[in-house]
């Protein structure tokens, strides 16, 4: 499996458990997540009432399974059509190659400012850092992501990236960035952001976007958004660079139309996104606007190696974010704690897959799940995320996991023997009686102490009051 470059953010240094602890202590975050989660759930419930969501989900799953099965053919066709429309397609094996292509392009065209619209793939490849190293000014233009950029944070939420910040925090960030007085008023804050970002759109030489879906049939890139900034990013600067995970291709418009409807239903509980930009090639001679050049960067980054394995379904993901909002773990700690652009259940699956199973991170992220299966129910393309999490856990190849395996080997040897099992059962019963004379145990010794850190253990059942 390729992908030796870390996908997780380099500043996420503390162990994951510690980061979850910090997140849990943040009451503000907790409130914001609860509000956002409730609003997502209400929207989603409404979609279920107003649309045959279950059938739409089945079809979504069939489409994506089919796409991944035919990925090489679809990519060849996409490349051919985009090129025929006047675009340039480049396939890159990893994030480093992707960043190099973009910085080289910027150098060759004498570019100085890059305007970006929301894209998880560019976070995955750490494009902003690469652009800055190359002396370029990169500005996020999605409101939430711009706020994060000003705060020096990384996006970890597929939707609503700044869900963990409140209005006062945002006002302070805006004031610091502009050196102006910014009133503490929702409308005024948005107006301020619009004005500052308009200046960026006007100045940018290159616009960088992600791609929600690419349609092989016509070579069209679909960029879905709610703010109109992606439209400006992909149309105003003289060069548009679209960075796309290689799995995000569909065969034809029939499939694309279905997924473009499912995506906002799952993501925001609405049956249409505010803007769907359909981009086929750069500006044609008879067109009034659009960029002079269009570059499509097709990123592998460990994806191709997943095809044909029992983890292949991870490639079906259309990055709607529904599994995040459905996940009780994610709703408790938020995406920032994960330390990866991809958080929540899908992030816990693909982060280690994309960066390799040997990094210590892979001992952490896939285990931040109770395997409750809410993510599978929420997924608009029916990815069995709880099963994938178990499979990913089975592949972790870190020293920590090997140590854990040695313990489980002891467990396995003992509990595959009825005699040893019986002995351990009697031992445990005696232990419970010894430690819990009053019906409850408040503290256990050794590794079992992890249980009693947070809970008492009833020494008899049903428990005493």
């Amino acid at each position: 499996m390729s992908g030796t470059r870390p996908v997780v953010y380099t500043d996420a240094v503390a162990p994951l458990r510690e980061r979850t602890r910090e997140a849990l202590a943040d009451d503000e975050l907790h409130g914001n997540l609860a509000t956002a989660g409730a609003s997502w759930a209400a929207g989603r419930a409404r979609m279920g009432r107003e649309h045959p969501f279950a059938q739409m989900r089945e079809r979504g799953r069939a489409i994506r399974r089919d796409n991944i099965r035919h990925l090489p053919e679809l990519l060849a066709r996409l490349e051919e059509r985009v090129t025929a429309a006047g675009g340039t397609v480049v396939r890159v094996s990893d994030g480093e190659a992707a960043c190099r292509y973009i910085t080289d392009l910027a150098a060759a065209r004498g570019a100085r400012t890059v305007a970006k619209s929301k894209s998880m793939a560019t976070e995955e490849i750490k494009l902003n850092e690469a652009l800055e190293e190359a002396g370029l000014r990169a500005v996020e233009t999605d409101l939430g992501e711009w706020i994060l950029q000003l705060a020096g944070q990384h996006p970890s939420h597929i939707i609503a990236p700044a869900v963990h910040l409140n209005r006062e925090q945002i006002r302070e960030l805006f004031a610091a960035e502009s050196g102006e007085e910014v009133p503490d008023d929702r409308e005024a804050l948005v107006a301020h952001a619009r004005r500052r970002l308009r200046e960026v759109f006007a100045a940018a030489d290159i616009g960088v976007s992600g791609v929600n879906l690419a349609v092989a049939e016509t070579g069209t890139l679909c960029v879905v958004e709610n703010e109109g900034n992606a439209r400006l990013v992909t149309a105003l600067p003289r060069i548009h660079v679209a960075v796309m995970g290689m799995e995000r291709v569909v065969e034809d418009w029939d499939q694309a139309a279905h997924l473009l409807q499912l995506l906002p239903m799952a993501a925001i509980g609405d049956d249409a996104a505010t803007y769907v930009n359909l981009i086929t090639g750069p500006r044609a001679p008879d067109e009034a606007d659009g960029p002079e050049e269009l570059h499509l960067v097709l990123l592998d980054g460990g994806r191709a190696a997943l095809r044909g394995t029992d983890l292949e379904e991870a490639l079906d993901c259309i990055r709607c974010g529904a599994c995040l909002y459905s996940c009780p773990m994610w709703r408790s700690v938020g995406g920032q704690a994960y330390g990866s652009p991809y958080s929540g259940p899908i992030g816990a699956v693909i982060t280690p897959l994309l960066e390799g199973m040997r990094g210590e991170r892979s001992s952490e992220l896939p285990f931040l799940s109770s395997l409750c299966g809410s993510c599978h129910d929420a997924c608009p393309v029916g990815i069995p995320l709880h099963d994938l999490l178990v499979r990913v856990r089975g592949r972790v190849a870190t020293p920590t996991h090997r140590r854990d395996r040695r313990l489980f080997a002891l467990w396995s040897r003992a509990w595959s023997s009825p005699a040893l099992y019986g002995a351990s059962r009697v031992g445990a019963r005696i232990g419970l009686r010894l430690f819990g004379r009053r019906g409850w145990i408040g503290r256990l010794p050794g590794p079992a102490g992890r249980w009693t850190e947070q809970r008492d253990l009833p020494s008899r059942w049903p428990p005493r009051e």
Partner: protein
Amino acid sequence: MRTCLADVAAPSVWKAARTVLQRAGVEVVVPRGQTCCGQPGWSSGHPEEARRVARRALRAFAGDDPVVVPSGSCAAMVCHGYPELFAGTPDEDAAAAMAERTVELTQFIAREGLRTGAELSGTVTYHDSCHMLRILRERESPREVLGAVAGLELIEMEQTDVCCGFGGTFSVNFPEVSGRLGEEKARAASVTGAHELVACDLSCLLHIAGRARRTGVPLRARHIAEVLAG
């Protein structure tokens, strides 16, 4: 199937399940050679180690009889996990056959139309355990058997389908996140005013009841088999 957790922490649960079935006229055999279904190893990412334990279950429960499990999670491990765990091994067919025959306790009672004759004058609230609900896809059978208990009133709690945060080794790998979810669940159950919390999974109940006691939430808890056994 007794389940390892009941063996260790609450033998009254599997004994209650046996009582309920016997009272309804079912001949119950509790195989002596059984240990654990293997789920702890499987869900922790140690399939080889899990297989060894699960193979013991395949041997212990060989035959044609239905395997009744007083746990949605262990039943889901057998029904959903075993086919994958044993795929491509010599035990593949035996695993598929056991998966076919295995059923959670309330599913069995509902499916067979068994009369438990249980009575209870009081109120309960029911927690939908995750694997019961989202792997076995069973929401109705526990409600059906509770509905048949004379004098029992079921008060549904808010967000009964949300995970309690137990999650096997997750509960000790991320105890704080697990604890937060457990507390939310305990509070949701407590505010219903129901006399006790019931569920089809002892694991959830140990976690929720333990967390309730630690955080001072007044809550009684019993396994559904114990309610049915009276």
